[in-house]
């Protein structure tokens, strides 16, 4: 039930550079905050995000406790051919979310 939003242009020209924007639901609990009973709230973060374009990795990011809740990440890539962008976020407590988005290259 984790929500992720991905935005790409609907269609791009071959060779064009386009921006990929992503937003995913996650508390990004730092592991440095005190809970109500004085103990530390355990860390719960997304540790890594990767993106492949028709199977080839084009972007990878390691996240830390310093990334804000509900992480927003944007990056760029070159339009090579029509196909699928695959996204995977992994993190603490077995967190794993996969999403795909279609890109049409004219």
């Amino acid at each position, binding site marked *: 039930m984790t929500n992720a*939003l991905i935005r790409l242009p609907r269609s791009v020209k071959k060779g064009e550079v386009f921006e990929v924007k992503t937003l995913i639901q996650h508390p990004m609990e730092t592991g440095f905050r005190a809970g109500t009973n004085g103990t530390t709230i355990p860390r719960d973060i997304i540790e890594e995000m990767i993106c492949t374009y028709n199977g080839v990795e084009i972007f990878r990011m390691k996240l830390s406790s310093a990334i804000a809740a509900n992480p927003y990440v944007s990056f760029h890539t070159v339009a090579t051919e029509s196909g699928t962008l695959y996204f995977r976020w992994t993190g603490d407590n077995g967190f794993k979310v996969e999403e795909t988005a279609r890109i049409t290259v004219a």
Partner: protein
Amino acid sequence: MKRLLGALLLLAAQASAEIPEAERRSGYHDMSPSVQAMQDDDMANPAMLWVLDGEKFWNQRQGAANESCADCHGEAARMAGVAARYPAFATDANAPVNLDQRINLCRTEQQKAPAFEYESRELLSLNALVSMQSREQQIAPPSDPRLLPFTQAGAEAFNRRQGQLNLSCAQCHEDNRGRKLAGATIPQAHPTGYPIYRLEWQSLGSLQRRLRNCLIGMRAEPYAYGAPEYVALELYLMKRAAGMPFEAPGVRP
């Protein structure tokens, strides 16, 4: 000089100056450009994650009646303008209700399902979805005479001193609007963007949650969620902001 003396006497008489229409501004304009940009771009506005949930809940059949919001209302887009005129008088509750309470009335009366908890993901999501449909519309409180005593009560609450710090809403948000409380610019307290993704909360939250924060800040006892006192304040705040553009779901610091 005469005018100055008059103004001073007015102050001494404890009358808070209402904000002239030309000077009204949304809290959006008191934010830094980078936070404004977060609200301007739906892909950078984390509130959109709640809207996404709202769309799911909107279409889910619920309760003993096995009905979804969509079964009665159709597409969420048909709710355009609704959030801009809430709170409104609900005949089925015989009281003014805010949008959260309207959604819950639909649940208990139509869907025959238990009400959502205040500030729950479900309620905030549905509220965000419905509120978003009124973007760019003008805030348009209904001219229902049954609301008048409640709006009046809200106006009185807005001007009443409360808490250990003995402050009224008006002292900060009208008399000292635009000035700096520590590092923060005091906004005019117009409910243009609710529910808001508040950076401090790192979550979406309702106007009632924000009012609760203010009460705690002035060291006053907050009301329980859903209390009629909050709804009265909401009614007055919407009347005060009538005609201003709606920008939900907003981002605020």
